[in-house]
């Protein structure tokens, strides 16, 4: 800070900034609820368990002085993290499960690409390389090791409108195939995140390759975040994400609390 190269007191400085509000902690996480939408697949495939919160006791006969619940959910429910092993392209990579991912990667800078206007106009909006390059022209090149989050404001919807299931599948925005390959190979991003159910568009199964975010991210050992909210509180760049999934043995993903450290102007 203040041009000093001595980093020994950086955490002390950060704590001070947090206390003063110069750095704000922003929650990008949906509350895990029993009515949280989950990914819908053709029902002949196995289905993710929904979120269930079942009371063990609440100061009652089952536990007079204490309140606690049993929890159950699929690895891919609520605001959640996708590990490389989730997709066939990442199945043979080292450290591809949530319990083996290096913890150093769980704190990383983030670029936020605001396409909320486009998504409001077209629920099937696809993020393209050209759109990201336009963002770079304004905000600078996406550096290696960054998260890229696609701000759609989709998280402001709820229930039916959030899942937005038509008779031909979900209609939710996401990236196209070219931009995903380019972000991974040319920009070396750490991962890609969305506000929708899934890193891919609702109709992403019809792209080539199908579900390109899953295909390219996980095939290169990168990560996914989905069902994020609060992206409208993040600057285009300059914030830092904290994304620690549960340490599930050989887990393919996990609900998690996503926090952003956001510098506030002034």
């Amino acid at each position, binding site marked *: 800070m203040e041009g000093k190269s001595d980093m020994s007191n950086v955490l002390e400085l950060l704590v001070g900034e947090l206390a003063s509000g110069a750095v704000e902690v922003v929650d990008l996480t949906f509350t895990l*609820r*029993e*009515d949280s*939408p989950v990914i*819908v697949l053709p029902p002949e495939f*196995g*289905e993710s*368990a*929904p979120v*269930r*919160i*079942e*009371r063990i006791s609440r100061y009652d006969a089952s536990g007079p002085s204490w309140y606690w619940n049993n929890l159950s959910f699929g690895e891919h429910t609520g605001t959640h993290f996708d590990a490389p092993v989730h997709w066939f392209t990442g199945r043979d990579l080292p450290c591809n499960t949530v319990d083996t991912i290096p913890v150093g990667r769980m704190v990383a800078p983030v670029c936020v690409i605001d396409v909320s206007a486009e998504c409001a106009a077209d629920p099937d909006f696809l993020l393209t390389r050209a759109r990201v390059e336009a963002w770079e022209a304004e905000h600078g090149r996406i550096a290696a090791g960054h998260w890229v989050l696609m701000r759609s404001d989709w998280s402001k919807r709820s*229930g*039916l409108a*959030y*899942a937005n*299931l*038509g*008779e031909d599948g979900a209609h939710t925005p996401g990236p196209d195939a070219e931009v995903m390959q380019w972000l991974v190979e040319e920009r070396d991003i750490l991962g890609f995140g969305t506000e929708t159910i899934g890193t891919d568009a609702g109709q992403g199964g019809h792209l080539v390759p199908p579900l390109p975010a899953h295909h390219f991210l996980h095939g290169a050992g990168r990560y996914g975040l989905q069902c994020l909210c609060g992206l409208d509180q993040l600057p285009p760049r300059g914030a830092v994400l904290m994304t620690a999934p549960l340490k599930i043995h050989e887990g393919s993903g996990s609900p998690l609390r996503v926090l952003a450290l956001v510098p506030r102007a002034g």
Partner: protein
Amino acid sequence: MTTPFERPKRKDPLVRTELPLTPPGGRSRAAHLLTRAAARGQFALPRCRACGTVHFPVRDICPNCLSTEIAMAPAAAAGTLLSRTQAEVPALPYFRERAPWHVGLVQLADGPQVIAHLHPEVAVGAAVRMHLKLDKAGQAVLYAAPKTAEVDLMTDPKWREMVAHPLHRRVLITDARHFATPAIVKALKAAGARKIRLGVPEAWKPFREAPLYDGIEGVEILPLDLTSDRSVFDYASDYGGTTEIVINTADRVRAGQTLQPGTLLPAQEMMEHIAFGPMRLAQALAPALIGRGADGPAAAAAWVNLLSIHALAPLPGHMGWSAAHAAAHAFSQGLRAELLQGGVKLINLYSGPTEDPWFQTMIPPKVNGAALARGIVKALTEGLEELDIGPVAQELRERLDANPKAVERELGQS
């Protein structure tokens, strides 16, 4: 003498809700042969296999030939009223609250003379049509009605105590995504249901059938997911006090044999939907049903389960599903005993494979929505506890009654 059963007025909030009382519940084991017939809507009486004499009540030895070979057999539901009386001040509180009671001596066409509850309009010397009914305590009783078809039995409050007619009642259909829901709604409306609430699980998924119910008076579509504590609690909090009939349509059909890989999770899910879901709803809702068992003329009346006959003998290729129905069946019998404390009936419908899309490749006959709907209304309007729907269920029931071990082997080899 009798008046039509009009829609009851709204409750006066200054008046205490009466607690449910029931008639005496004790019966001998032998007398429960009558309970079984009444529960299934059959007019059957004990008949001596040796000499053919029909008697009443159930006896261990034939009063005519002393044979011990006595079995229930279908009997003529006909007789003549010999005499009648009116009990104005009965001793037991249940009867006293509902006095006067019309009681008479009936000469049955098959021989015995019986004491029966009477419809108020039956005259001495008149021909009667006999019914074997379950009373509020779930015990078999005889009821003599006028033989003429013009008399509406629902005009008699005592008859209304023995059935669970949907007329003027508010009904919950627990899972409106069940394929039979449109037919059930139609049948309940025709039977006079005052309100029909349709529970829609996973309200974030489209409910494409919703337009079918547009403009049908009294139909309300609500979120309800029996697999969610929160959802069930929310329903019970809002509507527990205004639900008189529950139609539990919870089902989830997935194929799979016990040793087939990948069938454990689907089996768990089926158990959650078919067995634990209704149990969860019962925990939230049944206390209110029991407490409202005497809440006016259209009090809480019934809980209906759409079960499979394969709860009793598993369907080959559907082990998890059959096990879930078996669990639901076991839960239902426990729930029945608890609901009876409030005089609320638990009705189980048993069908063979249905028109559910997950039975697509199954060879007919399959049970369609209209047949299920007819069965529901029949069971409610007649106050039954058990009803087999369709030829598959009826045939399997007969085979199970005759030799359950043979059914097990035969199903296992099919």
